[in-house]
């Protein structure tokens, strides 16, 4: 039996990777992938707790998160394609029309 803390450490590591990638990467697709990494890091902690406490609700929650993440991926990729078509770049530093 792997102790709970291992899962949580892995989960935290994945989430941290996601955050750092989100902050430092310039390519939109990479940023998007970092977001997915954060989500899945959290998912891992959910299932770990669910297994530990023998409670199903954590696992159910993970399904919800996955469904939402799938929907988000569909919408997000569509936006990325639209951005690329108009701006011809995926560098977020150049997508800055909202600046004052």
């Amino acid at each position: 039996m792997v102790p709970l803390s291992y899962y949580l450490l892995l989960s935290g590591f994945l989430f941290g990777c996601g955050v750092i990638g989100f902050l430092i990467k310039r390519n939109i697709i990479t940023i998007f992938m970092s977001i997915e990494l954060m989500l899945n890091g959290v998912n891992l902690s959910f299932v770990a707790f669910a297994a530990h406490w023998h409670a199903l609700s954590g696992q159910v929650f993970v399904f919800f998160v996955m469904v939402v993440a799938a929907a988000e991926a569909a919408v997000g990729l569509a936006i990325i394609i639209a951005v690329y078509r108009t701006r011809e770049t995926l560098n977020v530093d150049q997508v800055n029309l909202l600046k004052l």
Partner: protein
Amino acid sequence: MNPNLNLWLIPLLPLAGAAINGFFGKKSSRKAVTTVALFFSGAAFAMALLVAFRFSSLTLPYHEFFAHWIRSGNFTADFSFYLDQLSLVMLLVVTGVGFLIHIYSVGYMWDDPSYYRFFSYLNLFMFFMLTLVLADNYLLMFIGWEGVGLASYLLIGFWFTKDSAASAGKKAFIVNRIGDFGFLIALFLLIKHFGSLNFDRVFGSVMPLGIETAGAGLLTAIGILLMVGACGKSAQIPLYIWLPDAMEGPTPVSALIHAATMVTAGVYMVSRSHVIFQHAPIALTVVAIIGTLTAFFAATIGIAQTDIKKVLAYSTVSQLGYMFMACGAGAFSAGIFHLMTHAFFKGLLFLGAGSVIHAVGGEQDMRKMGGLKSFIPWTFLTMGIATLAIAGIPPLAGFWSKDEILWRAFQASPMYWVIGVITAFITSFYMFRLLYMTFFGDYHGAEVDEHGHGSHGHASHGHDAHGHGSPHESPMVMLVPLMILAVLSLVGGLVGIGNRFETFLAPVFGSAEGAEAASHTTELLLMGVSVAVAFLGWWLAYLLYYKRPELPQRIADSLDGLYEAVVHKYYIDELYAAVFVKPLIDGSTRILWQGVDRNIIDAGVNDAGDAARHASDEVRHMQSGNIRSYAGWVAAGAAAVIAFMIWMGVR
């Protein structure tokens, strides 16, 4: 049990007329406007007559509840009406004279482009005046009181494109506010100490209180404050200055509002509150002194005025002073009696003046009139009667009421009587002066042509009097009210013979104590004196303005300074301007506008705006448009929240 008189209809009928003419009058024909205005004011008069007809079968005072208004804790003030002998007299005067003046106005205002507006205002005035007269509590009375002030303002400034008319309206309104302030404070005191404004309840609680002979107390304060209100509305010293200026309004307005009805509201209010005043001798003395001084003071100003309406205005102020003199002497019924006869003859004088002004094409300066008696015989005849009446020549209306006042004033203090008699002499003098200057001698005016009529709205005429350009008589619609009022001025005083009027009002004011105590001889002697001074005034006016018209100028020259002061109304307007108006304007400009408004309020608002702009100018750099920096802020925020939660958990 009393029958239901439906008193509520009496004020509401003119209100309906005002609303109909006000909302639809612009699109209706003059005939339709006339019909509406005359129907509703006439209906109010008919209702009043009906009430008078059934009066003897009523148990008085008659109360009528119409609608709830304010019910708060123990305090109630309802829309309910009160009828006793006093309100009946006022009711008949207001609706009767009001209706006659409505008829007259049809002729006088016919050519005015705002014909419908005039009648809408006039009906509105009737509504408020009748509310004032019929109210059964001070608060409802106050509604009417303010309402007539509003109607007065609207009608004085009726020709508002004329600058002087607009400012005269404002002056009347503002000066009245000062008086109303006193009235309001009196009402607050009444609520505080008696918990009610209902006449019956207030007077019921005042009755058992002792008379405040030793020093001033609560009732004295209330009485004096009420008198302050009355001073404003009834144009007494020191608040009389608005009334002469109010002559800027159309002449029927001067007749109705500024002679016959509204300005007597103060007298009515003081008489209505007679219970309070009878318990406060000091307040009563104040009333008498103000009345006496005003009567004398205004009469002296009247001597030197050359504007026909201004003479009548000062005469009105003076006559109102007589009424307050009577009230102050405790002879409330004499005051109301004079109020009634004054409504007849002063209304008639103003309407006659309107007819004269109309005849000479809008001219108001008496020096440019003269010799009009052959041109406008009916106007001359009726105005002559009114002049005899106001001068106190027996047996016309003014003689009876003025004599009653002087007699009662003599009993209160011979000093009042002396000033009263001198005033009666001056009154007689300036009224006959007006009559001689206007109707006798040679005509000094310019030829009246069609153009000269333009400025004043009045009736068009069937005949071709305009052709030869001389002054012309007014149409029948204006003459008939004159004649009716002339008849009333002739016989109106006869109701006072043998104290019948006083006996009629006795249930309200209590019977006249002390009237019998003095001897009959004294009364006749005093009567003789007042008649003698009336004739003396007549003779003097005859001498100066008919026989020797060059004399007045010589006398004026010899009295140089004094005459100048009188012509300029003792510089009272200038004094008020210097003492009150200018400091107020300067204070408002320097302190309130430039000081408080600009340097504190404006500056505060501007500084707050500037501060927000500078702060946001600094902060806006956060909004770089760079997605990664936004992400950084989000992450930092999330980290801060987590840190906070952990800190909370640790703690």
